[in-house]
């Protein structure tokens, strides 16, 4: 269930049912875009249906057991639950596309957009920082382990994924807060901002905590990927050309290892984003994650929908970008059908 995933092995052409496509790199970009749009359509549908997944009457369950029938009826009307499903979906989509909005917040009586948009910045910053941290932690460790395969460093680094797998972010966060926030005063204990510098400082610990959640998987896969590259014939060939070891590492190893790293990050992004939701709670950062929780507690459905939708769109977009970036590095991925 986790999106803690490794890049799947690219199947050799043999079982590939996909018709061969012709066309240059732009055909690939086009195809990939189309795919992303398809997923987003699916995401919109699921977000819409989320409300209808509630067993029984969503309005009733939203208002609680002892709500008056009039209040329930009013909410049903507000949500259009008394109209046919298709009609409701049409309205939902129309509002989404004209106003980038999933409806009025039930709690604050303002468009959910006006709650979501101001919080996007800090959350995205957190996600980006967490991504950067996980790369900064993963890449050197994975390379070190791969280069020193089976030696002590490797053995030690290889334990990290197993330990890290069971580290609850909230617990790590708690420990970090006490150590670096309360005792050492290096970083704020929670919250972020105002201003870019304070925001950055405030996000260091949370981003680190979020990174800790995915670093184990990244290390494991990247080490394997690095080993693949290091033991491959083309690296042997590059050495055989009497290139310097630095040149081999920079021009050949690094570039080839970059593709699986990128793919990996893309694949695990969803998990990372999900992790920041929790982390925002632990560190009291007023971002989308906290908004999601508050909205859930307030049973503020349209906001929940909006946040979920936003996150999904971010994930799809970033996946699109990592795919395009990978294909920029790796010409094979631009091949028809090579994109996935």
């Amino acid at each position, binding site marked *: 269930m986790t999106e803690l995933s490794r890049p799947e092995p690219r199947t050799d052409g043999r079982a590939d049912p996909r018709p061969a496509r012709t066309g240059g790199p732009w055909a690939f970009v086009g195809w990939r875009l189309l795919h992303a749009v398809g997923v987003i359509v699916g995401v919109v549908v699921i977000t819409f249906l989320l409300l209808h997944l509630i067993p029984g009457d969503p309005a009733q369950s939203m208002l*609680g057991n002892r*709500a008056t029938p009039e209040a329930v009826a009013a909410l049903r009307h507000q949500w259009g639950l008394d109209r046919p499903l298709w009609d409701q979906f049409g309205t939902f989509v129309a509002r989404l596309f004209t106003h980038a909005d999933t409806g009025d917040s039930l709690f604050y009586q303002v468009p959910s957009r006006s709650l979501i948009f101001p919080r996007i910045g800090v959350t995205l910053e957190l996600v980006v920082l967490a991504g950067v941290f996980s790369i900064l932690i993963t890449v050197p460790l994975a390379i070190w382990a791969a280069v020193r395969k089976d030696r002590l460093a490797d053995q030690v680094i290889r334990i990290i994924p197993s330990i890290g797998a069971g580290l609850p972010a909230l617990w790590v966060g708690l420990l970090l807060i006490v150590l670096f*926030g*309360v005792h050492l005063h290096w970083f704020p204990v929670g919250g972020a901002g105002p201003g870019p510098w304070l925001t950055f400082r405030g996000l260091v610990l949370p981003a680190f905590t979020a990174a800790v959640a995915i670093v184990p998987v990244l290390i494991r896969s990247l080490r394997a990927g690095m080993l693949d590259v290091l033991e491959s014939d083309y690296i042997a060939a590059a050495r055989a050309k009497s290139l310097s070891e630095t040149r081999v590492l920079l021009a050949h190893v690094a570039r080839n290892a970059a593709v699986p790293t990128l793919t990996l990050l893309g694949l695990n992004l969803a998990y990372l984003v999900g992790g920041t939701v929790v982390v925002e709670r632990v560190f009291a950062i*007023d971002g989308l994650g906290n908004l999601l*929780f*508050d909205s859930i507690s*307030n049973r503020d459905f349209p906001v929940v929908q909006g946040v979920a939708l936003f996150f999904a769109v971010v994930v799809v977009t970033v996946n699109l970008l990592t795919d395009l970036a990978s294909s920029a590095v790796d010409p094979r991925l631009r091949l028809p059908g090579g994109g996935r």
Partner: protein
Amino acid sequence: ACSTPSTPIAASSTPSTSTAGGSAGSSGASSAPGSATATATAATGGGSGTLKYARTTGPTSLDPHNTIASGDVYTLNQIFEPLYVTDVKGELKPHLATGHTVSADGKTYTFTLRKGVTFSDGSPLTAKDVVYSLLRSRDFPKSPLGFLDSAIKTVTAKDDLTVVVVLKQPWAPLISDISAFSNSIVPDKLQGKTAAAFFQAPIGTGPFTLTSWTKGGTVVLARNTRYWQSGLPYLDGVEFSIVSDDNQLVQQLQGSQVDVIDSVPPANVADIKSNSALTLINAPQWSVDLLLFNEKVAHFADRHVRRAISHLVNRKQISQAATFGTAQPADSFFPPSMQYYDGTVTVAGYDVDAAKAEIAQSKFAQGFSTEILVPSSDQAWNQTAQILQEALKAINITVKIRSIETAAYKKAFFGFDYEIAINNAINDISDPDEMASFQIDDVNGGSTSFWTGYHNPAAIKLVTQAEAELDDSKRKALYKQIQQIVADDVPYVPMTYPPVLKALRATVTGFEVNPSGAVRLENVKRS
């Protein structure tokens, strides 16, 4: 007197200040019941930076006439002011008024307004504004505290600075009522704007004005440069941030990230006390933590069930385990620090055998399951709920704990969507009438007896009598009777008396909290 359902921190509140009645700038250096004192001296005002004030809930509305939510009150108290305020000692002081006279029959009050007070937009405060505000507060549909003004027949402006209030009957708590935040003064007819528009960018006479407000997030206030007390406030602004977890709250203070935290989990009290960089405010409060029963649920309409449960509430254990002894075990629903508290009432106290006997007489002798509603942010109450959960097993009551986010908790509680709840009653004003009628008078008290649905005509009658009774000793006797009736009926079980528990950095001075838990910030200085 009203009690607001609130988190322990939380309280609807009335303003309190030490610059009572006097001319601007002299801060009273009054030693609060709390440990904070104001030591600031007059200056030109401002220059003290922005106070970072963290709380567990934020505002949802800034309309003083239409709220009792603590998150709202904290903010609007800095923007709007009433005619009188309660000071740190719990005494009433003239504020926007300079004084009043009462007619011989006790039915006509004439208030003199302070000269030179202006709203933050520069327009002067006049009697018209006061007339409009008091009537709006009284008449606001479904206003939760409108009952405070229920005795008022008419309010008229005699001249620009004189307001005449005519009552339907003599009314003991009037000046206290006038000091409630719900009687704060807003401009006449809200300057012609709709309420929604006006309270988006509110204009009041208070020391601060609203700069920005992220819904569900931070509220930023700036110094009102036209504030009538010259030289005040010292602060350039206030930033109220929301930290929904009270543990985070403490850590943010310890990490020097905020200047003031609005509540301290009892577990951390000792920690903070021993930290010289921090100041702990621990003072008696007009407040009581209650276990409330929703009488719309059949189980709790049965008095025997309620009494049985009351017999199982081990107040001492709760005081020790959940509040680390910071809150005293309670007997009456009036806190001891409040006028007319009576320590001699007989209570259905901790007694397991009595509980068994009591439940045997009820319609639910074989027990039942129920759920107890608590806000998830409050550690002490969650612990209390677990103590009760364990205790109620003795009479076969299975308790599920419904621990939800504060905002959702409030919604459920106000909507009678609960069975048993833990909540806290606070008296916002110096007169116990607020608490009495709020919690007993389900018709006029604005809250259906604190959202329990408790209805005892005899008790209501006594409350009404006490309101009209101007003789102090007679009033005291009436309240003694009221307290005994409540102790017998147990519409709610008073469990502990939580003190005011706030903490701030030692560099913050002039911070005062009155016994209703309310804070005024114009005298606060940061260094």
